């Protein structure tokens, strides 16, 4: 549950933002980033639906890469689990 996912902001409506990560869209609260200036196109680290920090595009992209790797490894290992 505490896995952070970098997402890019697509749309902002008050404290809520539509964000995307690799084609998947989610509503994300910006309530904890009121001290920041946030704009469409920015990247944020999202935890359980709340943006906790702004981040750079480069950092977001390298984290996405890592997740792809982890997910494919985990899928393979869990499928190999005996019944």
């Amino acid at each position: 549950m505490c896995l952070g996912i970098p997402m890019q902001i697509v749309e902002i409506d008050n404290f809520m933002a539509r964000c995307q990560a690799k084609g998947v869209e989610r509503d994300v609260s910006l309530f904890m980033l009121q001290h920041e200036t946030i704009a469409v196109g920015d990247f944020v680290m999202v935890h359980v639906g709340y943006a906790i920090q702004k981040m750079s595009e480069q950092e977001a992209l390298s984290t996405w890469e890592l997740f792809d790797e982890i997910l494919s490894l985990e899928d393979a290992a869990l499928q190999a689990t005996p019944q």
Partner: protein
Amino acid sequence: MSLSSQQWLDKIHALPLRKPVKIMNVCGGHERAITLSGLRTALPKLIELIPGPGCPVCICPEEDIYAAIQLAMQDKVILVAFGDMLRVPVNVAKHDIRSLEQAKAAGADIRPIASPLEALKIAAQNPTREVVFFAAGFETTTAPVAALLAQGVPENLFILLSGRLTYPAVAMLLDSEDAGFNALVAPGHVSAVMGSDEWKFVVEKHQIPAAVAGFTAESLLAATYSVLRQLLEEKYFLDNCYPQVVSGTGNHTAQQYLQETMQVVDAPWRGVGVIPQSGFQLRNTQQDARLHFTDYASVARKRAGEMPAGCDCAKVVLGKLYPNQCKLYGTACTPRSPVGPCMVSDEGACRIWWAGGLRNE
């Protein structure tokens, strides 16, 4: 320019290490990245990477899960919880309901959620029902719960809070006679919220090198290299190897909401016991499920609060034992039929090791 994983590994292998080094991490996300990118086998043999108390589901009090099950069994209640919590078994007699998942199968209205925002939505959509949000988690999860409360919630939403702080468990280990590690990789996202300064005590009070890491292999290797160099040079400082997201003082807005809506109290950790000033308690008693629902009986049970019989999760959580040293690992306990919480949660060391293909010793 930042270095690649291979460059970091080369630098680590070039260090004149003579003695074994035990580096603890306290974050399920770190342990996942370490295990699944195979860092352990790539590092010099003298370096041990130990998964410590980094899984909130694993240390969530058994009594709280039991209470959540009892509340969920009431007709008027909709219970919402993070999906990870549903399969954690409690200690009850053989034919009693032992998890939220079993309670759901028996007809309880239990809904797994991925965000506190969903709890809000469910409460708003069901004004005639009482919605209980079983909120277990570390600072990264508890801060959003605080933000939710600060923003205002409907009267029919109640919180069963099991929020915990990460650093007091590390402080407890370091204050004990045998901490079991001589360097720390501090959690990236907990630090993003609370600030990396929170971990300075490790260096200043205990003279243990520490570095905050992110979740890529590069960041974890940078932190590993940093603590190794600190050990070799005997100059200790808190290094921030995740400056892209972490600052010394963290997210002030998040901290303000935590402060406004919750207070820090002594709190029990499953299988570990009470850790001073390690838990969050709601300030607003109206929203507190523990105070609103007085009609669920806390009956005396055998092994209440403990880990399941034969399960070594308590030792795994504290980094005293590796997952595959537990005799249930991979035999009675697998991700398909978990016995202990460390095999249930995506952040539990046992589940991570199993997913990483590590089998019994």
